[in-house]
């Protein structure tokens, strides 16, 4: 997701200490976390405009709108270029309301984040049609939803009408295409080494699906510890061709989750990346430029 970066302002708060970790905070905790890299969430757009100071903007990765708030007109010309994440909790039911947020795209990159559940395909379809980027909250889904994801992946890869990134497909495809290391936990904004979730009371939690875990003494090591343990245990991960980008992402929380479906998705992405690389190399070769 495109983020909004400006000159780093001086920290307005000494506690907690400034770090490279992004804190995903409710707007009410802004005072306690000023000066840190932040994702600030609210269901009141006007409050964001009122309470976030110009000096805060440089530290914002993005703002997150939840609860499908009204009154987003106030964001149109506020902090233009700042990325907005719009959270759809009930995508199958709420997707038509995306029309009400489409004009934000004139001045902001806007991403729609949604869970994989019944009806999510419609939400992704409309979000893409309105030119929103999409982030899918993927996890351990049953085969029926994996089939839906496979259809969606086909659309993402092959339909000319899908022009915007759909995560995690997009970052994985780019990683495979460029032959660069990718980390699914990071793509999904669930790597504790990179991001922490702060609740309304100001308590820090591990991000995303790890939210039920205590932070522990070294949460930044979680992904490495988890993937090493899975590998050492000789689980399905040990000989998985996608272990490097996945690092046990799909074995959380249930270690017994059957990864056959997600492996097929990843294989499709890698094959598409290989074909894309070959096509571009062939085109460059024909035109006489070096691949």
């Amino acid at each position, binding site marked *: 997701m495109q983020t909004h970066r400006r000159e780093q302002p001086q920290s307005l708060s000494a506690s907690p200490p400034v770090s490279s970790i992004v804190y995903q905070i409710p707007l009410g905790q802004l005072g306690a976390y000023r000066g840190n890299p932040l994702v600030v969430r609210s269901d009141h757009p006007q409050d964001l405009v009122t309470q976030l100071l110009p000096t805060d903007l440089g530290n914002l990765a993005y703002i997150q709108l939840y609860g499908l708030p009204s009154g987003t007109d106030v964001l149109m010309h506020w902090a233009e270029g700042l990325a907005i994440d719009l959270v759809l909790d009930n995508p199958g039911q709420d997707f*038509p309301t995306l*029309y009400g947020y*489409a*004009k934000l795209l004139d001045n902001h990159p806007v991403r729609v984040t949604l869970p994989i559940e019944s009806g999510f395909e*419609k939400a992704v379809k409309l979000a893409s*049609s*309105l*030119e929103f980027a999409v982030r899918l909250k993927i996890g351990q889904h049953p085969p029926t939803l994996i089939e839906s994801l496979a259809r969606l992946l086909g659309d993402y890869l092959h339909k*000319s009408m899908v*022009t915007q990134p759909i995560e995690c497909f997009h970052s994985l495809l780019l990683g495979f295409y460029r032959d660069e290391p990718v980390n699914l936990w990071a793509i999904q904004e669930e790597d504790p080494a990179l991001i922490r979730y702060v609740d309304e009371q100001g308590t820090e939690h591990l991000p995303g699906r790890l939210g039920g875990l205590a932070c522990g003494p070294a949460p930044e090591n979680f992904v490495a510890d988890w993937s090493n343990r899975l590998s050492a245990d000789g689980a399905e991960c040990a000989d998985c061709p996608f272990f490097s980008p996945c690092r046990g992402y799909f074995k959380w929380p249930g270690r017994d989750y059957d990864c056959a479906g997600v492996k097929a998705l990843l294989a499709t992405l890698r094959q598409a990346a290989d074909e894309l690389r070959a096509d571009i190399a062939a085109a460059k070769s024909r035109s006489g430029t070096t691949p």
Partner: protein
Amino acid sequence: MINGNHYSLILLSTNQCNAACDYCFEDKTSDRLSLERLQIIVGKVLDHMDEYQIGSLTIHWQGGEAMLLSPLWYRQAFAWIGEAAAKRGKRVEHGLQTNMLAYSPKWDALIAEMFGNSLSTSLDYPNLHRKVSGRGPEHYDALWGRKVRMARAAGIDVKVITVLNQGTLEIGAERFFEHMIDDLGITDFQINTPFPGGADNSVKQDLCLDSTELSRFHCELADIWLERGHEHDVRIGPFDQLMNYFMERTACLPCIWGKNCADELIAIDARGNVAQCDCWVTSYPDYVFGNILECDSLSELLRNSTARRQFSERPIKLMQGDCIQCDYLALCHGGCPVRTYSTRQSLFEKDPYCHLYKSLFRHMERCMAEVMGTLTEAL
């Protein structure tokens, strides 16, 4: 946009017209904008732009017939609007839609200065419905042709909107293309589908065309344009913009396929009535948002209008139907409200030309895939 970066206003300088076209959707009156009223209207539009921090405005001047007011009137309007906008740091551009029947060389200087030496007019082929009161279509064609030749001779760029009819389908795409390009010398035109807007009459009852025939005509015309037009600077809307779209270039698609036209534009008529567009503002009183001359704030008027809310909600409600399944949702969003309302008596159905749109999108997508494949092979 209503609250984006740019604001589009269709402004009817008069509700009066010097033509009597059978299929016109407007309910014409003798009202004309005075300069005093224009100043009030534009002042409130600029207030609205201030409130939403909108920097630029395009005024699309229409009627009735816009040329029934004098060039002097427009010159004064142009000067006043420019001055008022400049004081607020706003940029304003002007466009002109006219039937050209009242055109004479005395307009040339104004058209150059105010409209960038360009205008848009309308003619159908064959002309079945465009007439001056008491005369036939042939008279209209002859008069219009003479005015267009005069304007062209003065160096004015004349664009044309043409509405298809049963006669157009019968003569076929080849003859239509030849007539527009070879006979009339029109190299920039847009084809529109007819709809029975406004008060009912016998002509409007037979306006809607068979979707299959219409689709075939569009696809054939698109093929002819791709073969003989676009490389010779002939522009036919919507083919040119669909070509851009499917070649992943910036495309400016017609308003009928906008995400939500309530976010895109408004129309104000010579009485000050505000509505979604020129298709609504004089013809459907129940769908007028309010009167700008009778309100303190255009922003308030738009925010509080229950009629406008229906336009905003239209695409949302359409998503409960089959549009969400369509491969071309991103291009169409359920189509045009007035084409829907005038044939279905409801805003909350999809455009009756859905079949045509899908056929055309599919055809253009396939054509552009072939073009891009050829280009890739040529690399």
